[in-house]
């Protein structure tokens, strides 16, 4: 499904990502681990087509990953950094918008909220959330949309132990349903629980 071969990222002579390769098939979760600055986020940006590699190639079903391609956008759901949110829409509104964008059943919004146990926050605006709740909400949005590949950059940040468990369950469920997950992660417990393979950078 996703084949990344010897990709690198450089600006002038500054190496942002040393050569890295990755192969992900449907129904598996691959964790990318490594110290700060090893290039995990850069690799994920290449995987999602937001950054063109200096060398090497990233292919999705044999085609170069390009965020301008409707196929790429339809296939990959990504949580890289803090997503932008409407200040005047509630959490429920945001999820309804995602459902409208993907022509999903609006009634499933409750299920998306319950996946991360944030149903009680449905009518809150984004600025009324704690930083951990914002992370849960970002995860809920990312998992709400249909995708064949889910890309997560340190999804465990700011989550307590219980919520990290919910995240692991969400990943395991997605994988069981045939989705592929690639996540950069510093939480060894989460990696142990959710990932089938680990790639060290």
């Amino acid at each position, binding site marked *: 499904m996703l084949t990344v071969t010897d990709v690198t990222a450089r600006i002038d002579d500054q190496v942002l990502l040393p050569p890295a390769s990755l192969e992900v098939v449907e129904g598996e979760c691959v964790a990318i681990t490594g110290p700060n600055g090893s290039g995990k986020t850069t690799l994920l940006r290449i995987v999602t087509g937001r950054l063109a590699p200096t060398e090497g190639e990233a292919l999705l079903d044999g085609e170069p990953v390009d965020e*301008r391609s*409707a196929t790429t*956008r*339809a296939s990959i759901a990504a949580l890289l950094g803090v997503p*932008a949110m409407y200040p005047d829409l509630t959490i429920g509104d945001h999820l309804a*918008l995602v459902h409208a*964008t993907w022509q999903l059943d609006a009634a499933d919004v409750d299920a998306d909220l319950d996946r991360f146990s944030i149903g009680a926050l449905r009518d809150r605006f984004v600025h009324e959330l704690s930083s951990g709740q914002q992370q849960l909400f970002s995860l809920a949005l990312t998992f709400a949309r249909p995708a064949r590949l889910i890309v997560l950059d340190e999804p465990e940040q700011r989550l307590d132990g219980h919520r990290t468990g919910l995240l692991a369950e969400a990943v395991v469920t997605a994988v069981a349903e045939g989705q592929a997950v690639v996540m950069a992660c510093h939480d060894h417990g989460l990696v142990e629980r959710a990932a089938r393979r680990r790639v060290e950078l």
Partner: protein
Amino acid sequence: MRAPDRLLRDLRERPSTSDRATDLYIAVLAVLVFVVPLARWATLQLAPAMAWNVSPMHVALVTGALGVAAVGAGRTRGPVAPSAPYIDWVVSGPDELARVLRPFWRRSLAGVTALAVVAGLVVVASRDTWPDPVAAVVLAVVVIAFGLLLAVAWLAGQSRLALPAVVLVLLAAVAGWPIHDAWTALATAPRWWVMVVPVIAVVAMLSVRRVVVVLPPSRLRTQALRWSQVENFAITADLASAADVLRGRTRRGRRWRPAFGAPILVRRDVVGLLRSPGRAAAGVGLAFLSGLLLGPAHTAPTPIIAIVAVALSYAAACYLSDGLRFTAANRSRPPVFGFTPARTALQHLVVPTVLLVVVMSGAAAAGGASAAGCGLALLALACRAASAFKGLLPIEYLTPIMTPVGEMSSLRVLFWVADAFLVCMLVGATILFQADLWTGTGLLLLAAVLVGFWARSRWAR
């Protein structure tokens, strides 16, 4: 309308209709307070200039410069400008980019067309005789077509397509000839060859879809987030931080550490400019243009040329005085460097002063106005320093000021933000337009010294 857009519209209808009434009120007020007086003022100022025999080359220079400005603007904020959340949750959907982004492009296109219509009306209204009606219609069509051409150049700048951008800038420059002829034909009869501009504009518009689909959503997101930051800073009158958001990232010369005999912060400014060649070129280019205009500004029948020259010199000073701005913006933080604040500020003044004086005097020599170039350079820099040293907006300026004509605190904030710029424009343009060369130079130098004291008092405060 697509399902997400329909949903957003429904969600947005929740606020009471009074919100919409307020928006409409503000729009009408802005037109009445700013657009109409500005158009009227421009009409009055342009009227005497109509006696001038402006050559097609001059018009081509202006239209070409507008093309360059459109491409440059696109790199910072293009015509396709959805909000960041819309990009994250709607543009990231499965629909074709061209379809999702089309409404945003059309919105900007409508804005550019409206601007072109207003500009055309101002120019036609500046004439002292009634134009030939058919020629007036032809001119209107040509001006609107030129507006469309600029909009496509704006889009090409956003898409970072180098070749189309260069072609569009050249076309914008070439369009100066038919625009000139369409204008001069107002007094006689229409010249039909000028309709080549609408033909070019239509061809350019046909390429729009291809230009839109190469826009990466991540770039749209970056532009949206950056612009949102700029708006937030601008609302709090923190223009220095707003400008800082917009400046390009330095990528060149990371290992270049020249050693030459100059104070350390002077060296820093030189290195900074060389590592930001676009910024340095823009500053020097604007200073050069300002200097070139000084000769004609003394003899022109309208103050517009003097006003443009002063505005360009102030913009050049902003581009070239980055170190000064940085020092002023960070003065309230715990000091890192081992210099006194005064010594730091003085060293940061050296590079912009030398560059502005040399470039503007040199360029002004073409019109025999070298001395005025030197005087205006110093005035612009003194005003820039006064602006940089003013610090943060006093919180009490945000207190509402209720008057019979409405709440006026925003006007006070506006004057606070633009005070040094307004002083530069009023003093500089008045002296350039009213005084002869040597008297004017003396007055400019005197004004620069006085503004320098004003800047120093702000620094000391």
